[in-house]
């Protein structure tokens, strides 16, 4: 089971509290996790990545295991600790004013 932590605004939008737990088929990649997340919560489509190109939105970052994975290719396997559910995959709203 993959654990995902959403930023507050996306938790509110998806009407969830706490971590989201997802079943991901096949290799656990950034793309696979986001596919599963958007399938479960369609209202999140377009909020983390472009709906057509799947390019990450500029002020959204992906962290896990104390690493910034935002610039990794979307089909790169996530760390084993994420794949086995020991560590969460963090969706972050980048720190910026406003």
């Amino acid at each position, binding site marked *: 089971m993959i654990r995902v932590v959403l*930023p507050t*605004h*996306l938790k509110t*939008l998806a009407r969830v509290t706490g971590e989201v737990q997802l079943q991901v088929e096949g290799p656990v990649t950034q793309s696979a996790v986001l596919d599963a997340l958007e399938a479960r919560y369609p*209202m999140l*489509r*377009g*909020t*983390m990545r472009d*709906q*057509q190109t799947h390019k990450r*939105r500029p*002020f*959204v970052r992906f962290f896990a295991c104390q690493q910034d994975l935002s610039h990794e290719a979307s089909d790169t396997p996530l760390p084993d600790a994420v794949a086995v559910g020991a560590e969460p995959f963090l969706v972050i*709203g*980048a720190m*910026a004013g*406003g």
Partner: protein
Amino acid sequence: MSKVRVLVGTRKGAFVLNSDGKRQNWEVSGPHFAGWEMYHLKGSPADPNRLYASQSSGWFGQIIQRSNDAGKTWEPVGNKFEYAGVPGTHQWYDGSLRPWEFKRVWHLEPSLNDPDTVYAGVEDAALFKSTDGGQNWEELRGLREYSTGPNWQPGAGGLCLHTIIQDPSNAQRMWIAISAAGTFRTEDGGTTWKAINAGLKSEGIPNPNADEGHCVHHIAMHPDRPGVLFMQKHWDVMRSDNAGDYWYDIGETLPTDFGFVIDVNANQPETVYVLPIKSDSEHFVPDGALRVYRSRRGGNEWEALCNGLPQKDVYLNVYRDAMAVDRLDPCGIYFGTSGGQVYASADDGDSWTAIVRDLPTVLSVEVQTLP
């Protein structure tokens, strides 16, 4: 007794204000969607409980929210705004070519007859339509693909389609306005468009009388007189008596003819309201005083309305979608400020009071008059 509902979009959430027809006591609900920019909310004329809201964020993009119970509960609907075909380019601020790129929805205009049909005016400028309550959106591409489209350039706020007006007497006719391209009219439900900017003069473009490039800020129309349009342009308050074929200046006697909002009294089609703003760069009210100006003669002769409005040390702006009128008699006029106040008049503008204050910066105000 009639009721009035005011929908307020702000920089950090949405608010819904309700009152009876006396319009003296207001119940405020919100913030809805706290922390998000709410560019616009509007109710369906065909079903007043059906509301649409544009929710956006620099972080998380565009969301469209829909309510079926007058704003008590909301559900996110479709947010896929995909330009038709290969979008091409428009002009950027520096004159370079820039690919068309969706940024946000500025204005939502529900159909006059069908609660599930709604139009969206977006940045970069284009018009989208949904016929399933906002679940799916299709671009009315004939507008963006108009011959002058590649020459359109953004105003300071972006290349935004901010005004959508439907003709109650002809379901095929609509007007839209874009900053800074100008005004366009369709006679076939949005398939083809015609630029209608004759008479406009803008010193900020190379040819002041060009057919495109005018920074139109807002347009208003009385529903009983769809051939008569009133326009607040970047500079100039303008009027057309032939559905936009030709515009003429009606704002010469205003203290400044710069501003953003313009609206028409519900019961007096020749009574027009504007709120002059000091410019070029100040963008606050002149003389530190908040004053609405009213013309009872369709322009040219204007009177300052200040009863109840602060007249000292006021440096506020009022954005283009932040004035609206109700349909009661006497007419109620409402506007929201950059300082978070929503002012209302229940007597055609003769006197004003803040019906809520200290909200985040107000981006839009719309009014529903309910039975």
